[in-house]
């Protein structure tokens, strides 16, 4: 009997309607209007790569050990260096990172023994050309220019 009443009074449908009706409360909106307000990115976020430099001397921290290049599954890092005759150490000459093929797995970051290579919180990596995705040492050290969005 109760079933029959429910069938004719459409209670199940009204329950659904009430559920959606309650969702209309403005405080329930979850949309983030992305370029206008930016969600915070987690501290450990794996985004654009950065080659860290010494904060005071701005010399690179990279010791050209090539471990990141070996760790990379996509083999998109190329490190070249030359031996400095005075210090007997390898000096970094170029560092190329092909962001277009990067899958941000973080293996290079894990491999780096001196915390020189780091994946940062920057996630806006779009460019107009494929070539723009190949980052050289300067770009890796300074980071891409901040992107300005006009509405």
């Amino acid at each position, binding site marked *: 009997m109760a079933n029959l009443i429910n069938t004719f009074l459409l209670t199940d449908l009204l329950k659904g309607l009430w559920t959606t009706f309650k969702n209309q409360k403005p405080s329930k909106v979850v949309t983030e209007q992305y370029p206008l307000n930016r969600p915070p990115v987690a501290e450990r976020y794996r985004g654009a790569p950065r080659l860290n430099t010494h904060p005071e001397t701005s010399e690179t921290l990279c010791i050209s050990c090539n471990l990141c290049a070996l760790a990379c599954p996509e083999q998109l890092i*190329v490190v*070249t260096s030359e031996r400095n005759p005075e210090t007997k150490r390898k000096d970094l000459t170029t560092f*190329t990172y092909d962001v277009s093929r990067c899958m941000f797995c973080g293996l290079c970051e894990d491999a780096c023994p001196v915390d020189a290579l780091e994946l940062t919180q920057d996630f806006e990596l779009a460019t107009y050309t*494929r*070539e723009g995705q*190949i980052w050289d040492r300067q770009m890796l050290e300074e980071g*891409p220019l901040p992107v*300005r969005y006009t509405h």
Partner: protein
Amino acid sequence: MPDTPNSDDKPRPAPSARPPAAAGADRPVRRPVPKKPAEMPCEPWEGALPAALQERFSDRLSRVVLLGGQKLLVAEIAAAFEILSCLKQEHGFDYLVDVTAVHWPDKPEQFEIVWTLYSFSANERVRLKAGLAEGQPVPSATALYSSANWLEREVYDMFGIEFQDHPDLRRILMPDEWEGFPLRKEYGIVQQDSDWVRENLKIESAQ
């Protein structure tokens, strides 16, 4: 419009062409193995099931072992179907988990077909392996298990192993007109990839 650093009129010089990719260009796919590593633990598998199988198939079943604790049978390819149907009908292995193959180009029996079976009643998993040479036919398990249909199609697609009496042996993942069998060891991906990168990205691949 996003004002990105890479639009053409920016003062920053465009990143120079990739430096000589010598570092990683011709790296061999398989790196040399310096010292001989240890073997996986392998012990004889004892119990009612292996005894029954050994009695029935005797010398057609070359290995009945626990490899790293996992039950493994190695058989002749000609006996494979019979063993499968015996396992299904007499020992309750009613679920064919997987059919796959491994390519060993240096061995006389180039391919190794691997069936993984599971029994719901005994909560037991058994792996059956059988080697076969190029061109040798394999009996299809579709008559026993419907799940073999797609799994065998995939093996055919990837290794070119023909299953006899399969109802619908076509390529499944690759396009119908594809040439070659991708998971064979002689099928190189590095060359193909470099060509693609050179043609489409106009850069040298670092692979």
